[in-house]
């Protein structure tokens, strides 16, 4: 069914706000700022937006978030909603927005997401956010923390495939090396595997530097039909492949701890696009904790199942590797304001495919794969973007 979306829509505007520690802007203001910057990048005014999609903010939650942002901007879109699929929200929203454009529900859709997890949460909100993950009856009483859920995946992978903590550490090191080339990244000081292994244990085997950042920030994109996309200021970045896979919500109900629904999500995206993993010039893989990247490398077909550890040490994912991963620095080193996190992988991919990514530009990039997951490896979405609609 989603085959019909191939090459039908394109991103014509993209922008990030300042990210990292941004105490002077509320989550709402960051969201609106991102929209204003993306409109400027696209060269259009706010009244050209007839579709608006956001995700709710943890710091400034609103019952009708997208409607509230539209009201703030004083626009009246005919297609408007806020989505919530955790980290996977961004790309599943793109799936919906693309479908809306193709079916005529909207012509010009802005997708905007922002939050201020670093500066905007009260202590009580931060506690509530952490303790409200997990099944309320059958998991939460045992006091699992968010890193603990992902540690369960890491530990299972180590036991099943002989993966080691050093392999996970390679991911943090690579993301930092990318971030060092990105002037907007929150953390740019180079890291070594030894640094990661010397950082304090949070939930075995995960250490502090295996965990993503806590940040403020927002980003937005402007999406329109491929026909209209040619009239904008920048070369369009086309949506070529898209897929989703949703296998569970709570980790204790996962069908497998080591193989995720990224398999289904990736398979659908490759099938839509008609490309293979080896044809990708870069990938942006969801990295809330280092083990997710390793599992995604395997499940999306960049290496064999159980071979992620070897792939990381022998091939690598840093700058200059055959498949650079998280070229902006990822959630581990660029920024991580919560649910909006994958927006930055999206805007970065737009710049990579426009060939305007500066010092971190992947030479000649034509195709990129983006993957995000929400919940605890629960809700997966994959995009394939390209410079050409063909």
């Amino acid at each position, binding site marked *: 069914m989603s085959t019909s979306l191939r090459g039908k829509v394109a991103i014509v505007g993209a922008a990030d706000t300042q990210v990292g520690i941004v105490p002077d802007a509320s989550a709402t203001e960051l969201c609106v700022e991102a929209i204003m910057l993306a409109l400027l990048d696209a060269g259009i005014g706010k009244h050209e937006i007839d579709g608006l999609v956001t995700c709710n903010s943890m710091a400034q939650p609103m019952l009708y978030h997208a409607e509230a942002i539209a009201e703030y901007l004083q626009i009246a879109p005919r297609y408007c909603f806020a989505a919530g699929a955790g980290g996977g929200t961004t790309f599943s929203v793109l799936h919906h927005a693309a479908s809306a454009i193709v079916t005529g529900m909207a012509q010009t859709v802005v997708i905007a997401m922002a939050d201020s997890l670093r500066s905007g949460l009260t202590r009580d909100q931060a506690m509530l956010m952490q303790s409200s993950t997990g099944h309320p009856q059958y998991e939460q*009483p045992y006091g*699992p923390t968010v890193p603990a859920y992902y540690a*369960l995946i890491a530990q299972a992978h180590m036991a099943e495939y002989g993966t080691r903590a050093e392999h996970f550490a390679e991911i943090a090191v690579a993301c930092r090396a990318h971030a060092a080339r990105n002037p907007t990244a929150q953390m740019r000081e180079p890291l070594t595997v030894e640094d990661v292994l010397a950082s304090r244990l949070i*939930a075995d085997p995960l250490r502090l530097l295996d965990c993503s950042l806590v940040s403020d920030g927002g980003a937005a994109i402007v999406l329109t039909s491929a026909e209209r996309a040619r009239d904008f200021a920048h070369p369009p970045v086309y949506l070529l492949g898209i897929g989703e896979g949703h296998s569970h919500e709570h980790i204790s109900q996962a069908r497998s701890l080591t193989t995720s629904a990224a398999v289904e999500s990736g398979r659908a995206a490759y099938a839509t696009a008609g490309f293979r993993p080896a044809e990708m010039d870069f990938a942006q893989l969801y990295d809330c904790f280092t083990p997710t990247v390793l599992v995604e490398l395997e499940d999306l077909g960049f290496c064999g199942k159980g071979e992620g550890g070897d792939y990381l040490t022998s091939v690598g994912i840093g700058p200059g590797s055959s498949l650079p991963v998280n070229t902006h620095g990822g959630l581990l080193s660029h920024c991580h304001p919560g649910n909006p996190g994958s927006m930055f992988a999206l805007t970065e991919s737009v710049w990579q495919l426009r060939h305007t990514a500066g010092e971190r530009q992947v030479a000649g990039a034509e195709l990129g794969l983006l993957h995000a997951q929400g919940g605890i490896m629960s809700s997966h979405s994959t995009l394939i973007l390209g410079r050409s609609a063909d």
Partner: protein
Amino acid sequence: MGRIQPQGGSLVQKWIDGCRLGELRLQHCSGCGCFQFYPRIMCATCSGRKLEWVVASGRGRVRSFTVVRRAISPAYEAPYVVALIELEEGPTLMSHVVDCAPEEVRVDAPVRVAFERWSETVSLPVFELVRAGVR
């Protein structure tokens, strides 16, 4: 603030009632014969609606685990072992592995259930390592 307590409807309550009696209760489907946890109003395998409560053997294995070094709240004392326990009947549940040094826990280690007081009215299942030579 105390430890987080399970709350919910009648199915949750029936499970909690079992825990108070020292019973780890599962649902058994008389349609397809499978066991399921957590309790549901339908069989998640065959969609059958005839489910009966049974008492699990309490034996299982560690499917995965982690040692939480930073507690989620002051009501929990780090380090504690959060584990996914696969029961011999099939279902997996989250729990704690207790009465051992966290370093002793391994994936695949055999465990058996015990019950720990969570509040004045609620006890919850936790698991102990089955050590060689001890039944």
